[in-house]
């Protein structure tokens, strides 16, 4: 931060505006960077038998290992009504907190915990682990 202060100043003053179109490409597309997540138009095979016809499923595989998280704070976008399925594997006991929805998911070491949440509120929500406190995903529902 500090070392690039001068550069940032210049960027803010001069290049900030012209650089605007490039800004979105600076970060990787959320879905590809998560890798193991997939968004299918119809409900996945293990989903409840009769979801609303239009509901799509967003699967996010989360791995908490050695104090690191994958995905690592990526931004995911979803439309309202999507069903989010978290599949969490951890090497320690932890808690995953989906803010805004106020869902707490207890996680036990060595097992995979699955949790489905219907994304019925719009906004930006963080999905966080607690031990240590890490942002796994920033979820944008619109």
């Amino acid at each position, binding site marked *: *931060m*500090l070392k690039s*202060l001068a550069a*940032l*100043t210049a960027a*803010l*003053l*001069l290049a*900030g*505006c012209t650089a*605007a*179109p490039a*800004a*979105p490409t*600076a*970060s990787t597309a*959320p879905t590809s960077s998560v890798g193991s997540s997939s968004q299918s138009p119809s409900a996945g095979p293990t989903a409840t038998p009769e979801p609303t016809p239009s509901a799509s499923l967003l699967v996010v595989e989360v791995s908490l290992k050695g104090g*690191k*998280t994958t995905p*690592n*704070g*990526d*931004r995911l*976008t979803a439309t309202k009504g999507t069903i989010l399925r978290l599949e969490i594997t951890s090497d320690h006991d932890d808690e995953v*907190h989906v*803010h*805004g929805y106020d869902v707490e998911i207890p996680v036990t070491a060595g097992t995979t915990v699955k949790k489905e949440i219907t994304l019925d*509120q*719009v*906004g*930006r*929500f*963080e999905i*966080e682990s607690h031990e240590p*406190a*890490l*942002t796994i995903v*920033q979820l*944008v529902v*619109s």
Partner: protein
Amino acid sequence: MTPLLVPLHGLGSRQDLPLPLPAAVGAAVLVLLLSFAVLALAWREPRWDGVAGGRALPGLTRLVDARWFRGIVAALGVFAFTWVGAALWFGRDRVTNPVFGFTYVWLWVGLVPLSLLFGPLYRLANPLGRLARLLQLAGLPAGGLRPLSRETWKRLGAFPAAVGLLGFSWLELVQPDNNTLAVLQGWWLALVGAVIGGTVLFGRRWVAAADPFQAYAVLVSRASPWQRVDGVVHLVNPLRHLSTARTPAGTWAVVAVLLGGTAFDGFTSTSWWVRTTQSSGLPRELWGTLGLLGMVALITLTFALGVRGIGRLRPAGPLNLLAASVIPIVIGYAVAHYLSLLVLEGQRTLINLSDPLGLGWNAFGTAELGISPLWLDTPVVTSTVQLLAIVGGHVIGVLVAHELALRVLPVGRRLTGQVPLLLVMIGYTCGGLLLLFSP
């Protein structure tokens, strides 16, 4: 970082903008340039030249100066802080404790609309001010035990409050356990200690110089339509208010901390920041502390560069004078970043306030209320409000800067002298929009 607060920061995203981000940024820049062009042609002489004025309201003045009115506002303040203080010391250490929402949302965010609409009411409601008065009534000399000279007070200005505001920004944005009672108790103890301790030493005037919330409220109230002129409350043009209000020494530091803090808050929710800080071996608090200080330094540096065109920085006269033009930008940033937080978490706080100790009370009948998203479940409305707040704040900033610059610039340099500050404000606009809306 702050489970209670972070989820709702900056609702809406790039995708929800009514127009693509580059177009929004381009339009914002164009609006600023056009405003300046119009000013250059149509606003050639200082309009108010530092003279406050408007419509005198003697009736309203009598009302707000009446003992009973001041008593009621002060009593409300004392009651609110006592209620929340009970939650702070005797409540349960969980997110439903209303002290968190009261401190971070009602007070920190709510002060902005309150002071913008009603002026510096917080000065009356601030229980620390009442406590300082009590100390005086109990025999503390007016100037405290170690009176300061007039000159020292003048130099001190708002600097102590700027330090307090930086401390609060650090608590809100960096401190990892800021949603625990122990940390919040520590903060409030430190704040009350600093304000009341200073009052004992230097007298009652210290409260206005050092209380960060009061300083923030007073700063924002300079953009309100209410201004005292020769003791009488006037209904005034907020532009005139901004360009005629007294800005004490250190006002530049206050606006830099506020603007830098909000910008840093936006910066920490970019995925770049999250990824980088989480992948590094360094502790988050270190990143956060350096990031916050860096952002405040960046704002200070750019603002000083912009003001250089208008006058020499020493003495700091032009810095403080022109700081008034940053006030609407601070307000615009606050609205863009925190309005959704105020609406949603503000309602949650109202619900929690009925049960301060976690005993199942429903003292105000609000415990069973639900949270209405109002307009916030329409993302395009949210983003449009954010966009307008940022751009509107800067346009007003440019107007006020123009009026102030005309007052101090020699006739030959009236336009060229303003160009650096204009560029800085354009930079702030772009930066603000990119922080809010880029991924």
